[in-house]
């Protein structure tokens, strides 16, 4: 437990010293055996302390609510982690009632089944249609099953915009991008976008606060291309005001985790963005290199049109260049797109945390306000000659201020406790996502680098055949075989590594054939057949086979 009670300027105002121990007493009774929940429990405890310190005399009932909140959080986490059957305490005052249902009473399951791209060129790219099935037991929905729901990306975006503003407690997951670097016409793109939307739905439905929002139901139940948010929500601060407010120093935050989280997320956002930029530059430079490699290969082909060796070598060089170009694209499609989502999400999280700061600031103001009102009321009490009208007025103001403060406190508590939960979730999502992006990146890289090797090894025997005395045989490497099947990558593993049991993740036959085989072989075969008629007669050809042009 964060033992040190944070400094609080209103400490001296605490006129209910018994509130806290009371709460502490009530807690152990509700403590679960679950280890993971004890963490959140402690945090909630801190929360309670903080809250109770902030409270003035009228806040007793809120503290009761707090206790319940603590229990609710606990039970929620235990539900999430090991389905622990613990009866939740039914209460209207639960801070996060959505998280208090023991066995995920309400669920929303979505399965993305397809992706359609039609319309104008930009529409195709920016605004695909996502098709999904949906089943739910949420009371906000009219049915339980929805089949083949079609929603355009634009609609998704509307929903996200609404949710992001309306649900301040959660880090609403951002939409994955509408297209990938694979190119919108490729199968890989389709699969990737579909998968990303599935992941998005999964994240969405994990958040009880979000799925309970009636707007989700409106979204799914509305017809294709007709959805616009029905409820209006207003951002706490937007535009210039938001910018100005962001300039202010963040308010004091008792929750260290969240206090540290915002700068962390911000750095993730900034670094990921520049990482993307660097990756883009790498990829661009690689593409430039590909151009040069192709030109180099082509020049080799041009060197002597009748020489098969040069032709083949040039072709292979060109093909290697093409593979480099694929690698450049793959780099982008895997890591760049992966980072893209991180950048977007980190931004959304950062803004959500900013919103929390705003609310904290508002709360501070409300507290000051209610304190002022209280002061006023006290002054009235000490006086003898009081105008009853004035007293009434003061009391009303005091009540309003207290109410406002109470609302804000509650809101902040909701936000804080939910964010503490979601912070962990977000971090593990981030880790998992970056890991999977890197994994995909690496796998692709290995696959194509292996293909490159296959290509290079394919021309090796040709060069070697051209001159028995030449090349590396000069360096004493006579042993190298001359047959065409001289490849270092076989089912048994790689010839150059000692670890025999290590198998590549990519099946051999996938590497052994490249995208350019057709091109390379058909042309060569054509050339061969054309040549084979004259082989026996043509001394010139014989010479060219030996790698010497007959100049």
């Amino acid at each position, binding site marked *: 437990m964060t033992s040190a009670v944070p400094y609080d300027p209103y400490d001296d105002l605490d006129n209910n010293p018994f509130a806290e121990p009371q709460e502490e007493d009530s807690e152990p009774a509700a403590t679960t055996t679950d280890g993971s929940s004890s963490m959140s429990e402690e945090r909630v405890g801190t929360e309670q302390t903080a809250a109770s310190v902030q409270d003035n005399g009228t806040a007793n009932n809120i503290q009761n609510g707090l206790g319940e909140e603590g229990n609710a959080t606990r039970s929620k986490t235990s539900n999430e982690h090991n389905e622990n059957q613990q009866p939740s305490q039914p209460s209207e005052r639960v801070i996060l009632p959505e998280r208090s249902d023991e066995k995920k009473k309400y669920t929303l399951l979505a399965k993305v089944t397809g992706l359609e791209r039609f319309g104008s060129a930009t529409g195709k790219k920016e605004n695909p249609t996502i098709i999904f099935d949906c089943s739910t037991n949420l009371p906000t929905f009219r049915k339980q099953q929805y089949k083949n729901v079609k929603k355009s990306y634009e609609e998704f975006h509307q929903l996200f915009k609404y949710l992001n503003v309306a649900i301040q407690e959660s880090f609403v997951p951002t939409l994955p991008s509408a297209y990938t670097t694979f190119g919108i016409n490729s199968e890989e793109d389709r699969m990737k976008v579909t998968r990303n939307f599935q992941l998005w739905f999964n994240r969405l439905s994990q958040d009880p606060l979000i799925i309970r929002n009636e707007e989700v139901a409106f979204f799914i139940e509305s017809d294709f291309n007709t959805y616009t948010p029905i409820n209006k929500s207003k951002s706490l601060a937007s535009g210039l005001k938001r910018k100005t407010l962001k300039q202010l120093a963040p308010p004091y935050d008792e929750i260290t985790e969240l206090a540290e989280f915002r700068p962390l997320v911000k750095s993730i956002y900034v670094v990921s963005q520049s990482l993307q930029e660097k990756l883009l530059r790498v990829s661009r430079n690689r593409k430039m290199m590909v151009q040069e490699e192709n030109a180099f290969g082509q020049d080799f082909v041009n060197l002597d049109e009748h020489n098969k060796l040069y032709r083949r070598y040039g072709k292979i060089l060109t093909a290697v260049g093409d593979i480099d170009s694929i690698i450049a694209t793959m780099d982008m499609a895997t890591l760049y797109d992966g980072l893209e989502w991180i950048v977007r999400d980190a931004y959304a999280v950062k803004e959500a945390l900013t919103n929390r700061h705003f609310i904290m600031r508002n709360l501070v103001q409300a507290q000051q306000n209610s304190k002022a009102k209280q002061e006023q009321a006290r002054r009235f009490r000490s006086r003898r000659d009081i105008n009853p009208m004035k007293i009434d007025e003061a009391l009303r103001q005091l009540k309003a201020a207290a109410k406002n403060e109470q609302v804000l406190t509650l809101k902040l508590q909701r936000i804080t406790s939910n964010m503490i939960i979601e912070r962990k979730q977000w971090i593990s999502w*981030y880790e998992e996502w970056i890991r999977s992006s*890197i994994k995909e990146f690496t796998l692709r890289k290995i696959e194509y680098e*292996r293909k490159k090797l296959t290509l290079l090894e394919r021309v090796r025997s040709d060069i070697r055949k051209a001159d028995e005395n*030449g090349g590396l045989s000069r360096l004493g490497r006579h042993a190298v075989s001359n047959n065409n099947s001289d490849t270092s990558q076989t089912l048994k593993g*790689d010839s150059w*590594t000692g670890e025999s049991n290590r198998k590549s993740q990519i099946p051999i036959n996938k590497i052994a054939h490249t995208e350019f085989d057709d091109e390379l072989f058909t042309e060569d075969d054509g050339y061969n057949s054309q040549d084979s008629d004259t082989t026996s007669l043509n001394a010139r050809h014989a010479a060219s086979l030996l790698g010497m042009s007959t100049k």
Partner: protein
Amino acid sequence: MDYEDNLEAPVWDELNHEGDKTQSLVSNSIESIGQISTNEERKDNELLETTASFADKIDLDSAPEWKDPGLSVAGNPQLEEHDNSKADDLINSLAPEQDPIADLKNSTTQFIATRESGGALFTGNANSPLVFDDTIYDANTSPNTSKSISGRRSGKPRILFDSARAQRNSKRNHSLKAKRTTASDDTIKTPFTDPLKKAEKENEFVEEPLDDRNERRENNEGKFTASVEKNILEQVDRPLYNLPQTGANISSPAEVEENSEKFGKTKIGSKVPPTEKAVAFKVEVKDPVKVGELTSIHVEYTVISESSLLELKYAQVSRRYRDFRWLYRQLQNNHWGKVIPPPPEKQSVGSFKENFIENRRFQMESMLKKICQDPVLQKDKDFLLFLTSDDFSSESKKRAFLTGSGAINDSNDLSEVRISEIQLLGAEDAAEVLKNGGIDAESHKGFMSISFSSLPKYNEADEFFIEKKQKIDELEDNLKKLSKSLEMVDTSRNTLAASTEEFSSMVETLASLNVSEPNSELLNNFADVHKSIKSSLERSSLQETLTMGVMLDDYIRSLASVKAIFNQRSKLGYFLVVIENDMNKKHSQLGKLGQNIHSEKFREMRKEFQTLERRYNLTKKQWQAVGDKIKDEFQGFSTDKIREFRNGMEISLEAAIESQKECIELWETFYQTNL
């Protein structure tokens, strides 16, 4: 038993016959080797004869040179003292024109010089080694002293050489003993009493430099304690090396370019030994130093050469780029129709950058190496002058003037040639021609005002030349393109490497955010892989430049050199046409004057006609000779070049494969450990 043993063996064998009375030191094992290798011995002797006859040829070729008094000073005394045996010819031709001051520097002064510095020992141009021997051995007349010296010497290598060389060492000891034989022989006999016999003796030692050169090199490189004794011993050894060796390719040190050396080896191994073989020659270009100020600023390179062809076996001089150009032009002039290894291209901007200098140094070194591997070029007087001369700037000018090569006014284009009238027509006639402003100037005279169209034109008659010329142009074009795109690939690869590094450091930044332990580790490893990839990229880029790039560059410049010989042919052809034209004119004029045969005018005319006829015949002969030579050269050239090219391809392919494997390995390892 390796090949080297074979080559050495005959020496000992012969020695046993010659010197068994004085020497019983030769070990039994060597005798057995000698028996096995009698065949070799015979072969070697044959080779000697061929080289000797070749030397004769050289002597004849360079006959005009000897007329020059300054040049012949050193050579002549020797000639007087020897018979006209083959060996004498060899000595003359291989101890070429000497510095007049060499005589002065000779004998005792030499000792002082050697003590002062290692370099001076070899640049100090000793005159005839034979004479030199005398001075030394006059001092130590008794055989005992010389024996003791050589005895000391045989001990010395043991200190100098490490134990890994034990085997060779023992061999050398034998050789040293053998040497002592000759040494004592020399000292016992009064010098010059029997030059013929001496020459014979020298013949026997043809093979020996194999070991001795190694040793010498070690001496030079290692602690160079230029003791007097050693110096004497070097003098003792020197005459032994004035003869061309056989099997140069095999014995040539590792510095000789690997490709051709190995190829040479296989060639020798499989075929009958070629008629001419190159003498082992070691050249090094190093230590570029910036010299001069402002306008005269230039870079000087130290050229170190070692060979038995140099009369001091070792020479160290400093040369600048311009001198290499001079050498190229001079060789081109001396050997018409021969493809001369080209110097690097001129470059006016940025010629003091380190990379550039290193590159240029490498190219010049390979040029010299190629020259000294060529059996003809390596014996060229101008080449040897280039390697040894101390006063190069004036001597080179003199030579250029004497040969009319125009090497001083060097054109930028390597393929452009100048045909020396001196070389073509002989010195006297050339002087006449030059006075009138060159061969083609004669045709211009008087016709200028009439029309240019009447100027004779040379049309290549031989299909071969036209076709090949075209081919070469085409090839050069393609190669230039290839080289250009290779350069571009290289540049872009380096850019890629740079951006990869940036990426990698960014990944590290992300890792340093420390979101969680495993995440940071993953990202750090990811960054590391990228760093390795980056260095792998840079390495392969460098490799590509060093193999493909250098080879392409060399190929292109060689093509310019090939074009030069074609130009020589066409220029000669042009001269031929011009002279023929003139001759015909004179002939018809002569016909007109035919009536009064005894008139002064007729006689003059006839004399002129005869001169022209002589010129015509000479030119025609040269024209044809050059043509034939070109055909020969060209065949060899393209075969060599294509082989080289193919090798380059293979090496760069293998390098690419290796770096590819490395790359895969990096990623696989990353995958296995992290994902």
